């Protein structure tokens, strides 16, 4: 189970992304972070802190659960429904620049669902995508604006992100499917 990113690499990747965000956006006014549940939310909160460390500005941060927008929902005739978790976006997204945050970018289907969900909350000026890992194999025309690390994978592999907040450890591992 090879570790492709350890705690230190993850930390440095997020710091770098925070700096890129500051560079590419003239001002952080009107910017908000929205993390996709579950791990995207924790990454978004870490980015908010990093941005505050750099600029002193507090960035509004929300949590988005995309379960009810998944394109594979109800595709199977029977089976338990995925758990729905709370969406918390305690600010208006109208005319804001939204940084959508997730842990792994793969097929792009989660991001598609998240975009649909966000649009139901209002009309942001811009949506940009932040991911910790981009592992390729896109099935939809979606591209990340900020990437912590590109990890080339085969379809038979899976990328596992673990974070202190949920898993008690920070690392990214590459696993053979079914291993």
């Amino acid at each position: 189970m090879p570790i492709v990113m350890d705690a230190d690499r993850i930390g440095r990747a997020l710091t770098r992304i925070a700096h890129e965000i500051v560079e590419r956006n003239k001002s952080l006014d009107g910017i908000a972070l929205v993390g996709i549940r579950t791990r995207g939310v924790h990454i978004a909160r870490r980015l908010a802190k990093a941005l505050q460390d750099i600029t002193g500005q507090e960035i509004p941060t929300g949590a988005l659960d995309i379960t009810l927008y998944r394109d594979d929902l109800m595709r199977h005739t029977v089976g338990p429904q995925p758990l729905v978790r709370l969406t918390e976006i305690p600010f208006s997204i109208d005319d804001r620049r939204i940084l959508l945050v997730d842990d792994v970018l793969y097929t792009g289907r989660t991001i598609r669902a998240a975009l649909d969900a966000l649009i139901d909350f209002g009309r942001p000026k811009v949506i940009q995508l932040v991911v910790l890992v981009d592992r390729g194999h896109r099935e939809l025309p979606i591209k990340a604006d900020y990437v912590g690390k590109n990890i080339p994978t085969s379809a038979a592999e899976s990328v596992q992100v673990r974070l202190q907040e949920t898993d008690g450890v920070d690392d990214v591992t590459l696993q053979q499917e079914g291993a």
Partner: protein
Amino acid sequence: MSDETLPVATALRHKDLLAISDMTPEEIRLVLDTAEAMKEIGSRTIKKVPALRGKTVVNLFFEPSTRTRTSFEIAEKRLSADTLNIAIASSSVVKGETLADTALTLEAMNPDMIVLRHSSSGAAHLLSRICKSSIINAGDGTHEHPTQALLDAYTIRSRKGGIAGLKVAIVGDLLHSRVLRSNVHLLTKLGAEVWVCGPPTLIPVDIARLGVKVTHRVDEAVEGADVIMLLRIQLERMQGAYFPSLREYFSVFGMTEARVKRAKDDVIIMHPGPMNRGVEIASEVADGPFSVILDQVANGVAVRMAVLYLLAGGVEHHEEAA
């Protein structure tokens, strides 16, 4: 927010929601937790998610019920289901088509879920034996009204943080109340101390076997209560000689401000509606600061969305009665 460390089921075990008595505490928590997420959808500008797109839900109501039917319909629409309302007067059923035939006719049109309100206890069970669709019991006779109990539990939990250890006093017509039966099952499963109170003529035989305390003294029921739940008194019960007059009922059992004072300082007052002001509840109490009656209505939509969503997946193995 719910306590995420509580054990929560990952799915409901049955294809139908017929009765709280069939549910485990874990399933109840799953519904309540899912309802938390659903509640947020109602606060959005666009109050709609695509989860049940293409699913057909039939609201089959054999009893008039504006409140429950509207709540289900809004819940279905917020989940993007296609809804169909069928209201059939019970009187015409006796002469016309049987419930079984109505169910088979609907079933032939392949709906995904049927929400049933019926005046006969067990009607939802009958439908569930006939239909492949998921059946949601929206009240059957004097048996159960599971989504009402779930929304009551949701309301209590959101106000009190939990249910275990609370003293809940339920006062009113216990005999004819499906809300009572569902609530007693649910609240005792989740560890509340439940007191039921009403005249002996309106208390079901052996109700104490469900683990509730029975009293005919309303002061004893509400003493130190965290929650007071009133049940509707139907006017026609007077004809059945269950009690002498509405006036006398109110004087002995009516929930007045003076009686509420015996409860905890942060007591909440609940009523499943529709209320009879001046019979089971004084207007001052219904409209007063402790009343969460309108919260109950609001939470009803979220809880029904949760139930609809969780049942829409179906179950892999239908457990049939032997």
